[in-house]
């Protein structure tokens, strides 16, 4: 799956890290890094993280699941 975090908006609250630590990580106290294309098996975790983000900074692909290659 594909995601992007708007790091201008992100305030490093780290809720996402607790909910999906394989996908989101804090370097130091505030700098978030993440895997932009995590494994599909993590979808539920990532969706929960996106829902929990207090500033709605995590955006998930809405075409995920569509045939690759047929993406238009």
């Amino acid at each position, binding site marked *: 799956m*594909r*995601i*992007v975090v*708007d*790091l*201008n908006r*992100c*305030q*490093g609250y780290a809720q996402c890290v607790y909910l999906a630590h394989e996908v989101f990580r804090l*370097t*130091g*106290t*505030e*700098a*978030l*890094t*993440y*895997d*932009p*294309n995590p494994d599909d098996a993590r979808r539920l975790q990532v969706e929960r993280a996106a829902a929990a983000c207090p500033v709605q900074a995590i*955006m*998930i*692909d*809405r*075409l*995920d699941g569509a045939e690759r290659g047929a*993406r*238009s």
Partner: protein
Amino acid sequence: MTLVATLAELVSDFRANGRIVIVGASLAGLRAAEALREEGFSGSLTIIGDEPYEPYDRPPLSKQVLKGWMPAEHTLLPRFREVDAQWRLGVAATGLDRVARQVRLADGDQIPYHRLLIATGTRARPWPNPAEAALEGVFALRSRDDAARLQQALATRPSRVLVIGGGFIGSEVASVCRELDIPVTLTERGPAPLVGALGGVIGEIAAQMQRDHGVDLRCGVSVSSLEGDAAGHVRRARLSDGTTIEVDVVLAALGSIRNVEWLQGSGLAAGPWGVGCDAGGRAFDINGVVTDSVYVAGDVARMPHVLYEYQFLAMEHWDNAVFGAEVAAHNMVNLEPHYRPHLLLPGFWSGQFGVNIKSVGVPPFGDEIIFTQGSVKDRSFAAAYGRRGRIVAAVTFDHGKWLEYYARLIEQSAPFPPPPPGWDRPDIMKPVPAEFPAPGVPTAIPDVVLTGHDPNERRAEFRPRGH
């Protein structure tokens, strides 16, 4: 039919049957395509990109990808809706004919358009000596292929990496090297890293941070030459102070070059700082007259900003590409008075040495700086930039939560020094000179450039008398 009704009909006909071409298939190009469909454009849409990949995100390339946390191809951008476009990937646009309204492609095709969006961004400025740049082990960093190659080189645990240039990308790569416990030297021609973007006061803090993390930081020097071994692999760098360093990986982080060459002869106001456009993304021609059919967004755009005395800003920021694309897309399929302005308060982030550096506004527009919160010693603080008694920008180190507070003040052109938010006050609060290098002094390239008031940075072409 009234004129107004006719115009309304023209717009709805264009939305249904028009032809829009986007050149540049990256962040700005993709988000513009999505926004056009969101706006109800159902005509034909063609997206031309010279990279063979579907749009991907660049910021992770100098951070998590280089660390080896995930491969460079794990950066594809999420899609927020179908764009139903013809994608022409792996082929460059080589020319623009505004009379015939056609984009010329490298494979000889001509793509007709009614409206065109220029979103060709920038590329990394290569090491100026081509023979030295061609040595094995010498890299630049802009694309995902660049990142994959550099990551592989770091994975072989080089004995020393040389980063030339202390801007954001150079500093982030130096940070990654230290995290991977690889020795790294960073050379910066200016007095400190990040001076172009944040000034000398913050630059000094960044310099100390780099040294504390074991970066061999050398400021005020430049690299005179790179030398290879018999097999053509880089082994040594000679510096302007006469010293040499043994290295086997070199990253040239020398800022960027706008991708405008393909617009040569098009008559647009395209130059070294990008394509001049109005605050609604409509491109200017070389005489400073705004066009109706050509729009610009992202890193390649240069547009006037109300908060900065209407100077043209050239911004190389992620949010500028996203928001600029949305504004341009809206204006491409609407008529006055429904145009929208690109009234973005510039903002960026950079993760390095475990610190989250964020800023809003245009720091180089300021000439004074004041620390308003936190502690410089702990590298956890907020500082504001001022000019003539007004706040124009702010920067935070691990104080990102406070940035909104400063953003509101900047939007209102509030007085400088600003009232601190009443928490976490530093001991000394006194404005000091922000120490930006004078324009033209060689240094790390800032990523927001104030490019003056002239819509066309090249000279206008005057018609000879009698024509």
